[in-house]
């Protein structure tokens, strides 16, 4: 039996997404397929699987990503699927505990990768909102103003995403001053 659930997680809530997928697995619903805000689960014994997700450095089709996925499969993890740059794995709990990162440094590197997304989008929305404000000043056209406002709101949203992720990174950094 398969069960599909539609659910949306913000970019900065990737750890909540993973925790939710593991709660489902604990109940016997194990992730089998991922899509846009769409999760397909299959029935397994409760607690039989552990789920991990991660944002890859390169696109999933890139040879480096393929090499990485193969490496993880060799360690006993099953590759569930990818969604954009995000990759989802599961591992049978019989084969031991399953983690992708075991030190602070690799967790920080992972966050750095994720931080690139709001950074690029922020640069894009910010620059474009300026140019639309310019156009509005030149033409005094309400349409131009609407676009400029929309882009400004998007910029604020990207800033918020960046801050949420950056705070996560700060907390990890603080830990890394005392622990390896």
């Amino acid at each position, binding site marked *: 039996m398969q069960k599909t659930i539609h659910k949306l997680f913000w970019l900065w809530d990737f750890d909540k997404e993973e925790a939710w997928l593991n709660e489902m697995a604990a109940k016997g619903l194990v992730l089998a397929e991922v899509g846009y805000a769409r999760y397909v689960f299959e029935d397994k014994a409760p607690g039989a699987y552990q789920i991990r997700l*991660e944002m890859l450095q390169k696109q999933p089709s890139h040879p480096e990503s393929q090499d*990485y996925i193969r*490496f*993880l499969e*060799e*360690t*006993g*993890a099953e590759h569930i699927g990818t969604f954009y740059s995000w990759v989802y794995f599961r591992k049978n709990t019989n084969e*031991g*505990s399953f*983690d*992708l*990162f*075991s*030190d602070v*440094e*690799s967790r920080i*590197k*992972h966050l750095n990768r994720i931080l690139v997304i709001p950074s690029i989008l922020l640069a894009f929305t910010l620059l474009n909102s300026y140019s639309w404000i310019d156009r509005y000043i030149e033409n005094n056209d309400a349409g131009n103003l609407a676009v400029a406002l929309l882009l400004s709101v998007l910029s604020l949203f990207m800033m918020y995403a960046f801050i949420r992720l950056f705070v996560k990174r700060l907390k990890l950094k603080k830990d890394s001053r005392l622990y*390896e």
Partner: protein
Amino acid sequence: MESTALTEAVYYVLLSLYTPLHGYGIMQKIESMSAGRVRLAAGTLYGALGSMVEKGWIKALPGETRSRKKEYVITQQGQTAVKQELARLKELVANGETSLKME
């Protein structure tokens, strides 16, 4: 002297590669060497292997086919790095023990 402290992961990976091993083999060997205390996660190990190959401390053995699991082995440079680290650790332990005895 430049700072030469190795991370626990790097130190144990170097130690485990005196005989050639593939990724999962490294994880298992480190876990058994440390009596279950050090469990390297696959993603962290993958990143560490990449930087250590770049540094010339370990090298990938030429695989026969693409499907074969990639094996790694320690290099001469890697052995030097381990020996330096071992000397540093001995110093840490010796100083720790003398200080505690004085208490």
